[in-house]
């Protein structure tokens, strides 16, 4: 049987496309992926709010103020972490068995790890989690490293507890945190351990 010349052949074109695909695919496939990302519905956000309010997030990430009946969370600064304008004095020197101390806001903790400050969890893009993706958030909680890759998340953040959240729970918490009012508050970086505190 005589073959006609114009018969399309699989190989050369498929190869050409395989090479071209990464460039071609960037827009279309990324758009697809973006569509799958966190379009949170109201029920998910509500689930996240429930988890945040029952899992002790406010205890450390919402600064305390002194109320009529003692310390209470300052909800005007809800989940915005250690206040940037609150300078901390050097931590107290502790004697064994005492190991850690915390500031009146409950947002600064001193211990063998140095001094840690609680993070701004609001969706402010420059000082909070506004630019974080769900993957960044989930990997942080799962691994106890910033965004799953970087420095360790310091005590007293109860990573060993929170890493047991399901993916769905973490997605709900993330959705809720992205829905709350953004607060611009640049939390200071942690202080390294001093020899005296570290007892080393």
């Amino acid at each position, binding site marked *: *049987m005589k*073959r*006609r010349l*114009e*018969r*399309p*052949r*699989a*190989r050369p*074109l*498929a*190869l*050409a*496309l*395989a*090479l071209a*695909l*990464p460039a*071609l*695919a960037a827009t*279309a*496939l990324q*758009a*697809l*992926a973006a*569509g*799958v990302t966190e*379009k949170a519905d109201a029920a998910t956000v509500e689930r996240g709010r429930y988890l945040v309010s029952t899992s002790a997030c406010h205890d450390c990430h919402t600064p305390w103020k002194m109320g009529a009946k003692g310390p209470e969370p300052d909800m005007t600064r809800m989940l915005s972490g250690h206040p940037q304008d609150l300078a901390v004095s050097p931590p107290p020197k502790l004697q064994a068995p005492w190991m850690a101390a915390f500031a009146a806001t409950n947002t600064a903790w001193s211990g063998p790890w*140095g001094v840690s400050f609680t993070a701004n969890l609001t969706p402010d893009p*420059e*000082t909070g989690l506004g*630019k*974080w*993706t769900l993957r*960044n958030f989930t990997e942080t909680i799962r*691994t106890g*490293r*910033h*965004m*799953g*890759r*970087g*420095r360790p998340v*310091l005590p007293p953040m109860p990573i060993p507890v929170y890493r047991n959240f399901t993916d769905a729970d973490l997605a709900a918490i993330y959705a809720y945190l992205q829905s709350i009012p953004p607060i611009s508050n*640049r939390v*200071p*970086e*942690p*202080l*390294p351990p001093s020899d005296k505190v570290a007892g080393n």
Partner: protein
Amino acid sequence: MSRPLITVFGATGAQGGGLAAAILGDPERRFALRAVTRRPDSPPALALAWAGAEVVAADLDDESSVRRAMRGAHGAFCTTSAWEHRSPERELRQAQGLARAAREAGVRHAVWTTLEDTRDFIPAREDGMAPSGARYNVPHYDVKGEANHAFVASGVPTTFLYTSFRWDCLAHPALAPRRGPQGHFALRLATGNARLPGIAAADIGRCAYGLFGMGEEVAGKSVGIAGEHLTGRQMAEQLALALGEPVTHLDLPPEPREPLGPAGATELAAMFRFHRDYERACCDARSVSCARELNPRLLTFAGWLALHKARLALALGLSLPLASGAGAPAIPPLPASLHDTGLFEPGTTTVRAENLPFSPQYPLWSDGTTKRRWIRLPAGSAIDASRPDAWEFPRGTRLWKEFAFGRPLETRYIERLADGSWRFATYVWNEAGTAAALAPEDGLEVRPVIGAPGGRYALPSRADCLACHEGPSVPVLGFSALQLSPDRDPLAPHAQAPRPEHENLATLSRRGLLRDLPQALLDRPPRIAAPDATSRAALGYLHGNCGHCHNDGALGGVELALAQKAADDGESTRRALASLVGRTSRFRPRDAAAVTRVQPGHPESSVLVARLKTTNPSARMPPLGVQVADREGIGLVERWIREVLPSTRNINLE
């Protein structure tokens, strides 16, 4: 409702069903679905209607109904089934009818699921007849290939989607493994040692969805897809794992079985023979990475088995225990000794010849340890290098990296497992340097180590491994097109002078270990685009030491793009500079006044330098694996910022 409409033929079947589900499941709802079926009141058709599809009745043998089904459609998924009637002439008429109807309806993008016309490959016999004496060699292949002309002639912008062997067919009575005389299951594919491209039927539809999303860019093109290229033996091994029963591959044609009978068995045998004799052409034409690009959920054979083994067991007359490990292939535990990973000749520390040494041009700084590295691919396999920055390593790939301070301290080990996943481990050497044992999962500190900072040496934990290696798209960091470029950067800090025995892009390609490597990368080896030598080396240093995390995928939110691609005309460089120069740092070092990531002319005011230099463990970068600042590397970065960047800032403005 102005969403473009896609008409899907065979929407209640496995391939079309995959596409229908993808259209309906897209959260952006970019397309509307018209599901074509002969039986609109069948349960699958009703389910599609419930999910939001327009269900219409049409029959491929009734061209006017086909035309009606395409009316007003933007796209059409065109597919025919040979096995239903086993008449090549009828299938050809149906396909030609689809092409005509698409033209008449003004369809703007058709995806035609096709196969090779094997008569283009298999020479006709002297009498001009195909080997079987019939008009066709493999009728259901030949006809689809022949029908390509109808689509070309129709003028409809068409993507020719070359599909692969559908693993779903393994549950069909004609192909399902059967027990042999000894009671063991036998899979009869007659493909010898050749790899057979295979795919989950639903993935064909999901890949088609990717094609519709890309639109005219892929019109007029041929795209070949596969989930995996596997030999009969590899398929039998995975079947055995999934079923919990021994399965062997027999290099024999399938037995004639109902409902296909002897003619069907002959056709299947001819199909397998074609794949055996033209293995290279068939596999080359069907790219796994291409399919994954179109459809990120692409299943491997193991993944397909995990989903379908219950159906398969039913077809085989097996009852599967429910708690059989959820289809996960049994992974052997990590060897307790480095020698058992296959690095050395038994009883020696002589590296086995098949383990190929290499040295990346931009190595990671690890407190001044000296390193040696090797890779081994399974015999006869190759890396799919079609995507220059995301090489696809074959299952069974092993890599080793030895760290030494005078004596070997640890050898890290990465292995790609049969199920496609990767595992990481490290082995700690004895002081005599004669043997190394598997280190604990949570790491280990070795001391004293002469020459190491503080006399201590810390082995990473398994979680440490993942922190860096899971950052980029491929978990192998130092073995890539850029890192192995023969055009090596003479200013790269700590780079090992390449030895003759070290592999690079060219030698690997010559050995046949890089499949589909773009020729352009051999003609012009990858080289970081930079205005001068210092910039090139500094960007390379940041790539090798920072880019595995600071890329778009892993830490997108940080907006710091330090990874370099192998060939992108300087785009990586522009993006790196744009994300560094003059950008306000979110991180504010306590011990420095810097607030800008990179301040040209002023390394002392650049957070990048401050974080490379500091000894504060909660500020230092990289965050692990470094205790001692890299003076040579930091010196290079400082020199780049101080002397070069002030005059190259314009590159940032593009």
